[in-house]
């Protein structure tokens, strides 16, 4: 079965520190996405990618960078973490073309103190 794996599952970071969230997919999907989930906001799109080497800004990209070094891997980078970035982050993959079904990882719970 298709799989999206996120690491770490939980992370505590200090304000001003650098945080990297990793995502690996074995679906061979071209598209990958990073969302954050906050109460009252649902899921909001941070960055996405159409393939290796590409990254695009989503709806709330400020304070985040993304990297897609390969088809399988997509990272989210917080260069200077702030408490407002405390959230649950989800990675997802999906086929290009087709019907836009996304497959999600289990999430990373990030606390910035």
């Amino acid at each position, binding site marked *: 079965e298709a799989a999206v794996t996120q690491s770490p599952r939980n992370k505590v970071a200090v304000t001003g520190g650098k945080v990297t969230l990793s995502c690996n997919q074995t679906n061979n999907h071209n598209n990958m996405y990073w969302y954050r989930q906050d109460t009252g906001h649902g899921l*909001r799109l941070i960055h996405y990618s159409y393939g290796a080497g590409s990254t695009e800004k*989503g709806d709330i990209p400020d304070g985040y960078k993304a990297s897609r070094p390969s088809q399988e891997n997509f990272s989210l980078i917080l260069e200077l973490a702030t408490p407002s970035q405390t959230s649950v982050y989800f990675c997802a993959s999906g086929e290009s073309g087709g019907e836009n079904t996304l497959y*999600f990882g289990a*999430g990373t719970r990030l606390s910035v103190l």
Partner: protein
Amino acid sequence: AQSVTQPDARVTVSEGASLQLRCKYSYSGTPYLFWYVQYPRQGLQLLLKYYSGDPVVQGVNGFEAEFIKSNSSFHLRKASVHWSDSAVYFCAVSGRAGGNNKLTFGQGTVLSVIP
């Protein structure tokens, strides 16, 4: 810009009762529509999707949804809920052009099923 509104943040129903979770979307044209479910400490799982054809679509575990274009709605229904249906439910919309379109999610509805 596309958007989704789920007007009910929380819904509580008794086990065995029927269920409707509301979803209204904004999109010019005919969109792709989805319902996802999130169980505690897990990622989202696809429950059902509408692409074209019959406006009533069936999903897993007895769930169904009806696409009503005139009302811009895609409400989720189940005839008889089980305690294991307790979860967070998200409605989502995406465009069709090119297939590489972002999903926009609603705020989610927390469903609690009581014995």
